[in-house]
């Protein structure tokens, strides 16, 4: 059976992934819209920055975040004076790191959905009397709902799979920063293979199920678009 530590690690992981996804679904749509349509000369720079976590070793990202979070650094200092606690080895620090780390997974599906969206549909929205925000939630959001679900799902799944960044900035504080992937690493290090098996199997099954749902949605949308 799951130990108390393991189940608190699972709960913490779900909480982190849930919060990260929620915040990303607020940040990513405007960013993705801008990336899909802007003709500014510095767009490739922003696009590259957003995509960087895809190819950078997570430890590199973790290392720089650790430095930024340190109270010696202006950002770390600012956070400390604002909240009274430091970011490194805290849940808030993990949350900020996860948002950066999972950003491309949420932005990219939305960006390609926005780029492929025919602006003709938004013109229909305007013709029907909807202003900008109304066109977003009456036309764009319902029409691209599968893309939003895919983006959110990928962001969620990817946050659960986080390891390198967490290792660098999270430490291993039970209930605060000890996530499933770290707990698993601990079990293997202390040769508790039974526990490690259980956690691995849980992660494997959960990730697999999530991906099947996501790709099922993709297939459904593909079918819908073929006959549109």
């Amino acid at each position, binding site marked *: 059976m799951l130990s108390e530590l393991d189940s608190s690690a699972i709960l913490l992981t779900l909480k982190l992934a849930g919060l990260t996804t929620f915040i990303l679904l607020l940040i990513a749509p405007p960013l993705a819209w801008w990336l899909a349509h802007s003709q500014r000369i510095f767009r490739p720079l922003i696009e590259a920055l957003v995509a960087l976590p895809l190819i950078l070793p997570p430890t590199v990202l973790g290392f720089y975040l650790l430095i930024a979070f340190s109270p010696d650094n202006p950002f770390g200092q600012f956070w400390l004076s604002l909240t009274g606690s430091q970011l490194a080895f805290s849940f808030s620090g993990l949350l900020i790191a996860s948002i950066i780390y999972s950003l491309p997974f949420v932005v990219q599906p939305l960006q390609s959905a926005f780029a492929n969206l025919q602006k*003709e*549909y938004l*013109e*229909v*929205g*305007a*013709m*029907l*009397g*909807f*202003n900008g925000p109304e066109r977003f939630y*009456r*036309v764009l959001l*319902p*029409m691209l*709902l599968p893309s939003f679900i895919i983006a959110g799902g990928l962001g969620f799944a990817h946050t659960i799979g986080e390891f390198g960044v967490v290792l660098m900035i999270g430490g291993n504080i039970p209930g605060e920063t000890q996530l499933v992937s770290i707990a698993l690493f601990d079990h293997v290090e202390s040769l508790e293979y039974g526990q490690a098996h259980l956690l691995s199997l849980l992660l494997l099954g959960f990730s697999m199920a999530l991906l099947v749902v996501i790709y099922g949605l993709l297939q459904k949308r593909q079918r*819908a*678009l073929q*006959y*549109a």
Partner: protein
Amino acid sequence: MLRFDLSKKLGETELLPLLHFKGQIQLTGICTLFGDSGAGKTSLVRALAGLDDDFSGSVCFKSNSWQGEKHFVRTEKRKIGIVFQEPRLFPHLDVLANLQLAGKKADAPLYTIKQLAEILGFSDLLHKRSRQLSGGQKQRIAIARAILRAPELLIMDEPLASLDKPSRLELLPFIKKLGEQIPTLYITHNMQELFYLSRQMLLIDRGRVEAIGDPNLLFLDARLSLVKHAHSGLLIEVNKITWQPMFAMASGRIDGQAILLTGYQEREEKALPDKLQIKVASKDIIIATRPIKHSSLQNCLQVTILQIEPLVAGVALLTLTTGKQKLLAKITRKSLIELKLQPNLVVFAYIKAMSIVGEAE
């Protein structure tokens, strides 16, 4: 009144704007926009609807200024119903939900969804998705959607182009009636639609408004770009329609002269109307100074030449009259000289083909 003066330049250095539309339209009934492909009809209506904001100039609808030097009223505030060239139904909604969405911002549309479904014939499609519909079915729903928005101005960009001929004939009377309720701008390439629907026409040629006026008069004007249409011709009213069982054909009279209505067989069983409008293309008239015998030509009218105008090199346009009504005939310069045609001469006009436009008012 809809007044506009809109222009668009491609580059700053250009002296003449690429597109420059200036004119004013009476907001009664349907005004058709006619012109070649690429002449700028769609560009003009898009600018009038506020969908493209890269035009400079002004637009005034009734007493509201929609566009001026310093202001631009967005499409959503202009209360315009648009039927685009493509149906543009939302693919994620069924027909009913598509139509319900159109009513969200509309106060008091003229028709309910149910009535429109009946009139436009899609009552059994309300729960289908757009991908399950044919092009013509989608377009009927797009028309209903534009009406449900309760617009103050309707814009239709070749709404019937994707429909087959029977469906077109079925929908035209409704569109005409609708035009009497909501001022309408109607883009078409189809002369039958043009003459049936509108008493006002905006002729667009190469990015300019060439003329605005009564289609029958504009088509008479040899100075306009319309003459280059090989099919340009005039509407003629035929009355005293009767059925000729022997020939299985309807016949009627044009200013007292008998005519057989070829191409009208399809409505044999239905009650014949009193009057009909037909259109005879100017290239489908043969001029003879003496009656032609031993030929398959059926319809001959005795006409007086009113006017002879040169068109392009080697071709002349004759304006003919049967008394009250006018006909246009395009003949070669060679025939003109050989037949010694001149104004006031009475000649025989043989009609090779005609199209039935619809019932006259």
